[in-house]
C-alpha cells in the first residue's frame, strides 16, 4: 500500500482490511468503496491506543479509516509531503501529521524541553512544540504551508523558527533558545526571539512560512 500524491495538496490512499490508516480528523475529502471512519481517543501504540492523551493536554486529533476502498485526504488547502519510513523514526509537530499507516508505532514527545522553558512558559506553550514520534516501516503524510524543504546536518547546528519547524529525522538534539533577554520579548523585537537550535546528524524539514496548522 502506498500514499499516492494526487497533487501538491491531496493524497489518495487505498485502505484494506489488512491496512488501516490513521488520519487527522476533518482530513477526509471523499471516498469510494466500503470505508468507515472512527474517532480515536488518546495517542497511542497503533489503533485504539490510549497512551499520551493526558500528556498532550488536549484531545487527540486523529481518526481511524477502516474497511476497503480508496480515500482522498487533504486539509484546508495545505501542502502535503509524503515520506516513506524504512525502519527509522520521524519526529513531526503533532498538528502537522495528516495521515500514516495504522501499524506504525507512535508516541508523544516534547521537543526543546528545559532551557528557557521554565523562564517563559507562556510563550513556549503558545508555540506548541508537542511532537509525535513515528517509527516502523510504512507511509507518513505531513502538512505544511507551501511545502517543506530539507536542511541536512552533519555535526553542525541550525537555528529554526519554531513556527516554521515541521519535522526531523536522524540523531538530532533540539533545544529551544531565547536569542535575547526576556525583557526584550515584551517590546518590539526582531520577531526572532525564540529559536529552535537543532544539532547533530540528520535532516530538518522546514516550511517557508511562519503559519501554524490549527
Amino acid at each position, binding site marked *: 500500500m502506498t500514499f499516492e500524491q494526487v497533487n501538491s495538496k491531496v493524497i489518495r490512499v487505498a485502505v484494506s482490511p489488512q491496512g488501516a490508516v490513521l488520519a487527522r480528523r476533518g482530513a477526509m*475529502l471523499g471516498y469510494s468503496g466500503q470505508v*468507515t471512519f472512527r474517532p480515536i481517543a488518546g495517542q497511542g501504540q497503533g489503533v485504539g491506543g490510549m497512551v499520551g492523551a493526558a500528556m498532550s493536554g488536549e484531545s487527540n486529533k486523529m481518526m481511524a479509516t477502516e474497511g476497503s476502498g480508496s480515500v482522498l485526504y487533504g486539509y484546508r488547502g495545505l501542502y502535503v509531503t509524503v515520506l516513506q519510513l524504512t525502519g527509522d523514526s520521524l519526529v513531526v509537530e503533532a498538528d502537522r501529521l495528516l495521515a500514516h499507516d495504522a501499524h506504525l508505532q507512535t508516541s508523544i514527545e516534547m521537543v526543546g524541553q528545559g532551557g528557557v522553558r521554565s523562564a517563559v512558559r507562556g510563550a513556549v506553550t503558545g508555540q506548541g512544540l508537542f511532537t509525535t514520534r513515528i517509527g516502523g516501516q510504512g507511509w507518513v503524510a505531513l502538512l505544511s504551508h507551501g511545502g517543506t524543504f530539507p536542511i541536512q546536518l552533519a555535526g553542525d547546528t541550525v537555528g529554526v523558527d519554531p513556527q516554521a519547524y515541521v519535522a526531523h529525522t536522524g540523531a538530532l538534539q533540539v533545544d529551544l533558545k531565547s536569542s535575547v533577554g526576556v525583557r526584550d520579548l515584551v517590546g518590539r523585537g526582531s520577531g526572532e526571539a525564540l529559536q529552535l537550535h537543532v544539532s547533530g546528524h540528520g535532516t530538518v524539514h522546514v516550511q517557508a512560512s511562519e503559519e501554524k496548522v490549527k
Partner: protein
Amino acid sequence: MIGGIDSPTYDASTLPADDNVNPYAFSIALAGEWFVSKGAMIAYYGQVEFAGVSQYASRASWVAARFSSPLYVQDWVVATGQGKVLVADRGYDINSYDLDEGNLTIKQTNLLGFQTSLELKQSIVPGFVTLLGTGKFLASSNGPVIFVEPPFRADPESLLGWADCPSPSQHYDHNWMAQSFMSGLQGAFGRESGEERQYDFTGAGTILLQSSEATRVDAAMLRTIESQTNLLDNQSAGALGQRLVARAQRQ
C-alpha cells in the same frame, strides 16, 4: 538598470485571448459583455465599464433572464466594452469550462465569471449554482481540480461541483456518530469535522473536488439561512437566537 525579474511580460495585444496567463490568472478578451464576480478582476486594458447586475438589468432586460439568482445579484457586476480583463482569486488555480448545451453545478464562491450566453440558476444544494447552455465560464480551485466518478461520497467542504449526474443526497456515518458520542467528542467539537456527513453521488457523471479550503465568507449564505428562519415560530426563533449567542461567546 533593473534585472532579475524573469516573469513573462504582456501588453494589451499579447495577453492571451480567453485563455490562462498562468495557472492562477485568466485573460478575458472582452468584446461585449461578461458577468464577473466582484473582486475577481486584478487588472485591465481598454475601454471597459462595470455596472452592478441589477443596475444593468434596468437598461437591458435580457440580463434578468440570464442571471436568475436574486441571492447573488449584489456580488456580481456586468463588464462591458472592448479590452483584456485579467481575473484571479487568492492565488488559486483558475480553470475555464466550455459548456455545449450542457449544465454544470459549481460552488458559488469559486465561480468568477461567465459569458452572457450562459444562464445562471441557484442549485437546490445551498451555496451552489448551476450554469446552463452553451458558453464559457471561469472557476477557481484550491489546487488543481480532481475529477472522480460516482459512486462516490464527498466531504461537503471539498466538493467543488458536479456535472451530468443527479444532485447528491446526504449520507450520515452512523458508526462515526456513535463512536464520537461514546468518547464524548461530539460536544468537544462544537462543529462537524466532515467525517459524519457526506454528499453521496450515484448514477453516471463527473464530480469535481478540491482540497478543502479555509472557506471564504459567503455573504449569501447568511442571507439564505436568515430567510429560512421565517419558517420558525417566534418561540423557536428565540431559542435559536440564544443558542447562536452562546456559540459566538464560546469562540
